[in-house]
């Protein structure tokens, strides 16, 4: 990558620091090993000959590993092309036409059912449980509730067990998008209590182009993609075997190495402490509530997020102004707006997200670049002159 750096920034960048792990992660070595072996095998898992059987065996082994990540039986796993498709299959496949979604869901949930009722969140980004209860009580039609476990922009974690309990109390189904949480905190489908769970491989060190929907036993689902009857008739299309194998490799590694995130949490906390020391007026969103150990959404008041990410990129620090999907279409974050953040705060918040290889050097690099920008924008002289 270093060879490309100059081409983009127009100047020499010595170090590149990747702090956009919520957009995508590098491939884990365990996933790479699985992918390389699967890529050289040409069998179609649906074929009955030996090439097909070998492919199917590999696929079923992978299904077990992915199931193990959430402690669910392999037959609960439907492989799909990614988190977005998983969310669509969950929201459109149950036959429940009354849908409630939290106001901070990913666009792939919000746009799957545009007419869904929105459950508000508080200033910290947490779903208002009594409001969920009231909304469900107000209408007896069987509903589907969709609330993510951890937010992609802020890392704020929802009280999903409580949400599951409330949903159950109203005979509502509960869907939980755990794309950002999986591999970063220990997960257990029973503890989440959801009927449907969405997973994405490339957020936990697997390849892009593969994800899964975990479905409670016995639940019927109307397929989104119809055809050859793969995945027990719930998702047609030749299975992406290298993707599935890579997903499994990453899931296994993520589960066994989950303790790495204790160190990542310390790094993230030191990053936030560093920011506070540089800029007493900086705001970390969701700081008061449980968050993923790797995510910081931070506002540099008065400086647009776009200015910040461009300046940081020029200094070799890669972060984002929010969800990667909507990059290019610059608009205010619906997540921050739902939290009641004012326009200034919304416009000046960036997302810094860490991963298992992040280091103190990365944090130092970020703080150096962020501090330099902060001082420039405050019209202050660089440190040398101030001293």
């Amino acid at each position, binding site marked *: *990558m270093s060879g*490309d*750096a100059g081409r*983009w920034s127009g100047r020499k960048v010595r170090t*590149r620091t990747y702090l*956009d792990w919520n*957009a*995508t992660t*590098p*491939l884990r070595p365990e996933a*790479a090993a699985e992918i390389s072996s699967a*890529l050289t095998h*040409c069998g*179609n898992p*649906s*074929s*009955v*000959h*030996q*090439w*097909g059987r*070998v492919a199917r065996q590999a696929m079923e082994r992978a299904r077990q590993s992915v199931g193990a990540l959430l402690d669910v039986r392999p037959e609960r796993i439907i492989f799909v*092309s*990614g*988190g*977005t*498709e998983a969310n*669509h299959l969950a929201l459109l496949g149950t036959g429940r036409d009354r849908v409630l979604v939290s106001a901070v869901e990913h*666009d*792939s949930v919000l*746009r*799957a059912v545009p007419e869904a009722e929105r459950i508000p969140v508080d200033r910290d980004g947490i779903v208002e449980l009594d409001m969920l209860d009231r909304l469900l009580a107000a209408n007896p039609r069987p509903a589907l509730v969709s609330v993510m476990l951890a937010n992609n922009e802020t890392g704020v974690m929802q009280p999903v067990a409580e949400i599951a309990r409330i949903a159950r109390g109203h005979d509502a189904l509960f869907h939980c998008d755990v794309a950002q949480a999986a591999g970063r905190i220990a997960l257990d489908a029973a503890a989440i209590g959801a009927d449907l769970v969405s997973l994405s491989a*490339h957020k936990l060190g697997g*390849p892009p*182009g*593969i994800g899964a929907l975990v479905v409670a036993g016995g639940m019927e689902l109307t397929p*989104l*993609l*119809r*055809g*050859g*009857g*793969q995945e027990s008739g719930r998702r*047609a*299309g*030749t299975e*992406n075997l*290298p993707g599935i194998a890579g997903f499994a490799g990453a899931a296994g590694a993520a589960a066994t190495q989950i303790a790495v995130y204790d160190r990542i949490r310390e790094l993230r906390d030191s990053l936030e402490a560093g920011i506070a020391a540089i800029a007493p007026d900086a705001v970390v969103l969701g700081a008061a509530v449980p968050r993923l150990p790797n995510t910081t959404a931070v506002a540099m008041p008065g400086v647009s997020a*776009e200015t910040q*990410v*461009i300046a940081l*990129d020029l200094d070799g620090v*890669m972060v*984002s*102004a929010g969800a*990667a*999907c*909507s*990059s*290019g279409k610059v608009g205010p974050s619906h997540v921050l707006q739902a939290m009641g953040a004012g326009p200034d705060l919304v416009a000046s918040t960036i997302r810094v997200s860490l991963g298992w290889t992040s280091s103190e050097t990365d944090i130092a690099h970020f703080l150096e670049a962020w501090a330099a920008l902060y001082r420039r924008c405050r019209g202050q002289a660089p440190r040398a002159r101030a001293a």
Partner: protein
Amino acid sequence: MTSTGATLRPGRGSARPNAMPIYLDNQSSTRLDPRVLEAMLPYFTEQFGNPHSASHAYGRVAAEAIEQARDEVAALINADPREVIFTSGATEANNLAIKGAARFARRHPRDGQPRDHIVTLATEHKCVLESSRQLKHEGFTVTYLPVESSGLVSLDALTEALTARTLLVSVMAAHNEIGVIQPLTEIGELCCSRGVLLHTDAAQAFGKIALDVEAMHIDLMSISGHKVYGPKGIGALYIRRRPRVRLLPLIDGGGQERDLRSGTLPTPLCVGIGCAAAIAAAEMTGEAARLRHLRDRLQTGLSRRVPGLRLNGDAERRLPGSLNFCFPGIPALQLIEACPGIAISTGSACTSASVEPSYVLRALGLSDTEANTGIRIGLGRFTTPAEVDFAADALAAAASRLAAESGMVREGSNPI
């Protein structure tokens, strides 16, 4: 591997103990071309950026690779890159094309004339038939046109099937089971003159025969990566811009792919299908000639030794590497079992575990019993003359032995 002892009985088993069988099922999936693998690898590892992360270098490098791949796919079908969107495969592309066009037309009727009729062939791939069936549930009318005994559609029948309400015709470019190539240019002219959209499932044809969306008047074309020596998990849909073909998305969200297909694009897979398209563009002509030669060699070898062998589907208008035979009186599953050294199938992989006779062969006019004797053979880029000769020997020997056994059974004698 099962019984290596089978090698002791010539004609019965594999002469390749401890090896995988010779792969002659290239319609089902193809081996990844090593050059494609090499092109993909950096995007799995060091260049892992999310292509939609416009704010930093890693994202932009990935986005640039994807746009190059889009150019390569578009170039092979004479399309503008802006007319190509990536999907998870041909099944998704077919679902999106058919349901997307139909649902858009329903939501946005033109000149007060409802357009709610879809015409397709009885021999289409399951994902086209199932998508059409879904639309029927939603109130659309679907005509499943029969084909001639050659597997080709009759243009007269197609002309007659079109009505003022017809919105879309969906015809497979080249068939996955019998390999026949439909007269797309003529079909395209007809659809164009009648103001009907033409969708073609080109999963098998893309990269194997020349396709030109302009010359053929194609409005929508589904493409698969893993049928053309590219990776699984990626496909594409060509969507005409002039005049613009409008679709409702199946998968919405982040707004990627011009709001028609949301979800993070898998950079390595896009690079893979792009590279596969570029290789096909450069080598298709020579490869087709080589495959036709191998195909003829196999067909000749078998015809000479299997009495009554019958080729299913038009003999001339077919994919270079594709063959489908009925071995008279020999159930296909028995024949396949008797040839463990080669990987072949009874038809579409999606339905290959099914014991039902192929609906495709039935549509050619074969009886259930005849259809149950159908074998599909797919030669590909990595098939060698020696493999073809081995397959011909194995199939002919097994067929002759099975015919003799069934003859003995019929005569009431003890089969060994």
